[in-house]
């Protein structure tokens, strides 16, 4: 669409601008402020330069939670993206079942995040939970409050339960948007189902898959509530991801400087990795 140049449009954008500026700029400035100063209370601040950043970047605990975070995000992307795509391909295209499936599939997305945690908490209890009891009944020892592997398994299963639906809905929307003529042409050309997937569906889904990967990457990198309710970051600190670490530092420890420096580093990592994903995927597309 040809858009006309008109600076008066700023008046229409102004409310949004002010609202977001109030919410984003003021806090970010506060964070930056804390990150480069030292305080001993009484609202007295001293310039501390890059001390906090150096401290954070050399902090073993931060390295550990970053490593855990990367492994977690990598794993859930590897599971959720192919699974979501597969489920979307299984969805009916028309008929009364479409709405039923969509509503049921979208349901996990509407569950408050702490309830997701509670739900899986109850589900995975080793003695009275369906999942926990079930696994133990198979003869595999399972206790997510004691064994790191059980805890990781539960956390990942929970995230798959919670977020695969988002990938399904995105892919389904992409699939529905492919005109029938493509499938008909493929039939006429004698393409096998695999070729239809490889040469029609996958290329047409590239855009939504990019969005799905980006969203899942960003959101999983910020995961907090579900995990804090389910495992509290434990056992030990084996499921302590970046947000959990940050909130503990910021609200618990009173060491505002390191927490603020942590915040900035954290935000920059997400921005950088998102940019990297986006550029790589777009470059692939441009080829």
């Amino acid at each position, binding site marked *: 669409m040809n858009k006309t140049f008109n600076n008066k449009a700023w008046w229409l954008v102004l409310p949004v601008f002010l609202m977001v500026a109030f919410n984003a700029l003021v806090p970010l400035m506060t964070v930056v402020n804390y990150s480069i100063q030292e305080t001993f209370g009484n609202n007295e601040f001293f310039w501390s330069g890059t001390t906090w950043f150096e401290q954070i970047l050399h902090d073993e605990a931060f390295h550990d939670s970053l490593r855990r975070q990367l492994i977690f995000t990598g794993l859930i992307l590897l599971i959720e993206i192919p699974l979501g795509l597969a489920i979307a391909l299984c969805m009916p295209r028309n008929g009364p079942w479409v709405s039923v499936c969509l509503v049921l599939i979208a349901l996990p997305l509407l569950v408050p995040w702490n309830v997701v945690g509670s739900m899986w908490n109850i589900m995975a209890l080793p003695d009275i939970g369906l999942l926990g009891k079930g696994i133990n009944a198979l003869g595999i020892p399972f206790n997510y409050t004691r064994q790191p592997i059980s805890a990781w398994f539960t956390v990942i299963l929970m995230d798959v339960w919670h977020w695969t639906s988002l990938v399904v809905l995105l892919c389904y929307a992409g699939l529905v948007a492919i005109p029938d003529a493509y499938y008909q042409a493929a039939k*006429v050309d*004698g393409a096998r189902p695999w070729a239809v997937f490889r040469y029609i569906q996958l290329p*047409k889904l590239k855009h939504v898959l990019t969005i799905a990967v980006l969203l899942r990457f960003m959101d999983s990198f910020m995961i907090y509530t579900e995990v804090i309710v389910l495992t509290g970051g434990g056992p030990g600190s084996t499921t302590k991801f970046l947000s959990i670490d940050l909130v503990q530092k910021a609200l618990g420890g009173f060491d505002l400087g390191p927490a603020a420096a942590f915040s900035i580093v954290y935000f920059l990592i997400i921005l950088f990795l998102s940019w990297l994903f986006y550029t790589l995927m777009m470059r692939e597309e441009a080829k």
Partner: protein
Amino acid sequence: MAEIRIENLRHSYSANPQGEEDYALKRLSITWQDGGAYALLGPSGCGKTTLLNLISGLLTPTEGRILFDGRDVSHSSPEERNIAQVFQFPVIYDTMTVFDNLAFPLRNRGVPESEIKTRVAEIADMLELTKTLHKRASGLTADGKQKISLGRGLVRPDVNVIMFDEPLTVIDPHLKWQLRSKLKELHLRTKRTMIYVTHDQTEALTFADQVVVMNLGEVVQAGTPVELFERPQHTFVGHFIGSPGMNVLPCEVRGGKALFAGIPVEAANIQAASGRGRAEIGVRPEFVSIAKSGIAAEVVRVADAGRYRIVEARSHGHTIKLLLKEGDEVPQSSTFLAFDPAHTQVYEDGWIAGAHR
């Protein structure tokens, strides 16, 4: 390549059709010769795309049979029928090069790579795609993409029929003409059976040896372009083909004569008229002329259409259009009109009198 015979074909999109109106395609039988160029012509929603999809196997008919060279293929898949189809919107495989696109139908059928190479090169040459052969297909213009779709049909040497579903819809007007003559040329060169679906009479009449005109799920007339023009079997064909369409005027058939507003009019098929039903006379604007006497009329409007002029006249409450050659004198407001008896037909209930229905 094959002769296509359609026997008593009917199709309904509802699983459980009740009355005649549930059928998108009402009873139809027709035979198409091997190597012919056919067009299916009709307004939107007349059932022509349904018929096309039935032939290609994208739909399975509710009733009736489709035979390729005498073999019943009514329930075969498109692949088994070995047909090709070009769609309204160009369908290309975005991620592949032009070469891979053209090779795709052959590769799916396990043709050896060496043969694919020669075949694709030959087709690319025919379609003037050789230069872009190793470019990504998604970068091409709409007409280039449509050529690829066509190429995927031509590349298989053994296809029974190539079908076109309004293939020029998204092509720029100045390229439409080019692509149309290319199609005609390809038909002459390859001698494939081709079926071309369109709602554009120019496309149908220039492309096809035989045009099948459809309306409301029925075949109204099948014939050569000349037949459609000179002897429309139904007033619908008269209206639909020709620009401007045929004049259709109410008349009475009495004592072996057709009377328009009480004035006797000679008609070629008057002997066949039964005298029952709603009678009309049809005469194309090309066969109406200005006369010294005959049917009195008032000239209402004159439009210049280049090499000829379209004159619109009113006579006894009806509009009659006629064509005058450039340079012919345009009559003053009051004049008389005459109809060419050889090209004036009587219609009864819409159908030409004496038609075999």
